[in-house]
């Protein structure tokens, strides 16, 4: 376990602290860690500052632990924790919530419970450790950075950023406020301190729509990372144009496989060379399905491979992401249309800020692709529909051209920063 970078600064919506101060606060609040003996505990918190306090307390004292925001703890979620022998502990009140659970043989000191709601919305507990979460241990030296942290407490992406702030000296964090993420990002930009950000393409599209463009452009960003959903060429090109000096990369990571593919060449997808079997982090594609072998994964088959459930397709010297297995294709009268392809094509249109293509059941053809779109500027809907239909007809197969269009006023962004 690397040393904690105790002096790294963390800025919260209501103040600033470093890890040493957070640990002192946690120790004062909770006292000796033996009260958690025999328990797999998840700390229930109300604020980002409390979440960070819980993180450093659990790490320092070698607990089997995790953290969750209070508003997520519905009776159903509490039941799911209990099924997994998890004791919920109210951080602010310093007391057990409900009944304490005896973890017994299930106890694993050092385990860190990551939460994911996936696409089903059902909360899942993903077991990790700081060894698997600290994917920066192979990076020898990082330039000093101040990162904006937009992720939801307890998610894999959030833990990745927390690990960066924990273990890499010189990596300071400015936390977003989930009550109004765009406003907190704007406020953070106004400080002029943010030099790096890890987020999703949807987050960026949302920011570009809601925050003054000159303010965004003025940010001294040197490092931009994106992941969590398919990173298309349009957003890479757009950010590359706004921040020509920034190092822009996209990262393929999942709660189970860990961070596995880092792409820095400014192109969507990844180079087929990454499937070279001699590489430290293994990438293989079988029947268009992506498999990862990584020291950061939390589960694997006997040979170490994690089936990601993601579909890729080789085009030239690249593999491009096509979505999730079983959910990637629209059957249009026997022809296959792929939503990520259609979205990538749409997003390259200068008037399109965001798009989402889905299937809609239709007579004769079985299904038709339909699109939701957010335009970069107000436009007459009928004209926009005609223009986009014509545009798609020029670059997509006829069966892949969206047949119905819905124009939204804003990008629907989930707490995971995905759409």
């Amino acid at each position, binding site marked *: 376990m690397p040393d904690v970078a105790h002096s790294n600064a963390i800025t919260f919506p209501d103040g600033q602290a470093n890890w040493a101060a957070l640990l002192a606060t946690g120790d004062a609040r909770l006292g000796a860690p033996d009260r958690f003996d025999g328990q797999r505990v998840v700390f229930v918190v109300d604020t980002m500052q409390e979440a960070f306090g819980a993180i450093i307390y659990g790490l320092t004292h070698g607990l089997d632990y995790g953290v969750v925001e209070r508003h997520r703890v519905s009776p159903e979620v509490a039941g799911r924790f209990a099924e997994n022998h998890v004791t919920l502990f109210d951080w602010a009140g310093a007391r057990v919530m409900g009944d304490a659970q005896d973890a017994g043989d299930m106890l694993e000191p050092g385990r860190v419970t990551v939460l994911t709601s996936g696409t089903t919305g059902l909360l899942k507990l993903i077991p990790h450790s700081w060894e698997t979460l600290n994917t920066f241990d192979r990076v020898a030296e990082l330039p000093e950075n101040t990162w904006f942290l937009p992720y939801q407490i307890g998610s894999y992406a959030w833990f990745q950023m927390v690990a960066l702030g924990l273990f890499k000296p010189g990596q300071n964090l400015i936390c977003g406020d989930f009550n109004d993420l765009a406003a907190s990002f704007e406020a953070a930009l106004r400080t002029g301190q943010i030099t790096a950000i890890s987020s999703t393409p949807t987050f960026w599209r949302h920011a570009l729509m809601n925050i003054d463009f000159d303010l965004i452009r003025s940010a001294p960003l040197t490092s931009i990372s994106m992941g969590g959903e398919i990173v298309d060429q349009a957003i890479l090109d757009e950010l590359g144009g706004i921040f020509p000096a920034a190092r822009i990369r996209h990262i393929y990571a999942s709660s189970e496989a860990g961070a596995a593919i880092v792409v820095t060449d400014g192109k969507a997808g990844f180079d087929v060379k990454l499937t070279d079997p001699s590489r430290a982090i293994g990438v293989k594609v079988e029947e268009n399905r992506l498999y990862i072998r990584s020291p950061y994964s939390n589960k694997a088959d006997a040979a170490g491979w994690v089936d990601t459930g993601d579909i890729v397709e080789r085009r030239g010297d690249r593999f491009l992401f096509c979505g999730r297995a079983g959910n990637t294709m629209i059957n249009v009268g026997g022809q296959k249309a792929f939503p990520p392809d259609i979205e990538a094509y749409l997003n390259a249109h200068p008037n399109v800020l965001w798009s989402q293509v889905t299937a*809609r059941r*239709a*007579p*004769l*053809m079985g299904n038709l692709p339909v699109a939701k779109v957010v335009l970069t500027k107000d436009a007459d809907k009928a004209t926009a529909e005609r223009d986009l239909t*014509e545009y798609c*007809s020029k670059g997509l197969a006829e*069966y892949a051209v969206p*047949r*119905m269009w819905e124009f939204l006023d804003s990008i629907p962004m989930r707490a995971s920063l995905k759409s």
Partner: protein
Amino acid sequence: MERQEILDTMNLVMTNKGREPITEEAVATRDANFRSLDFSEVALRIETKLGRELTFDAAAMRNIETVKDVLDFFEKATA
């Protein structure tokens, strides 16, 4: 749904694709360049307009040859 409204929906689909609007009911759908995909799209647009899913007679759908057949078909389906 009124016959004219159905024809307007067909022509919205046609003009969105940069094609000439249909003016003659007697013309064959093939000659009017009105394709199977367009038929499905018209069905979706009508369903959206009515706010309900329609039940289609598969046998009647297979026998469609002219614009008149399309109009008759949707007129019956939406009645």
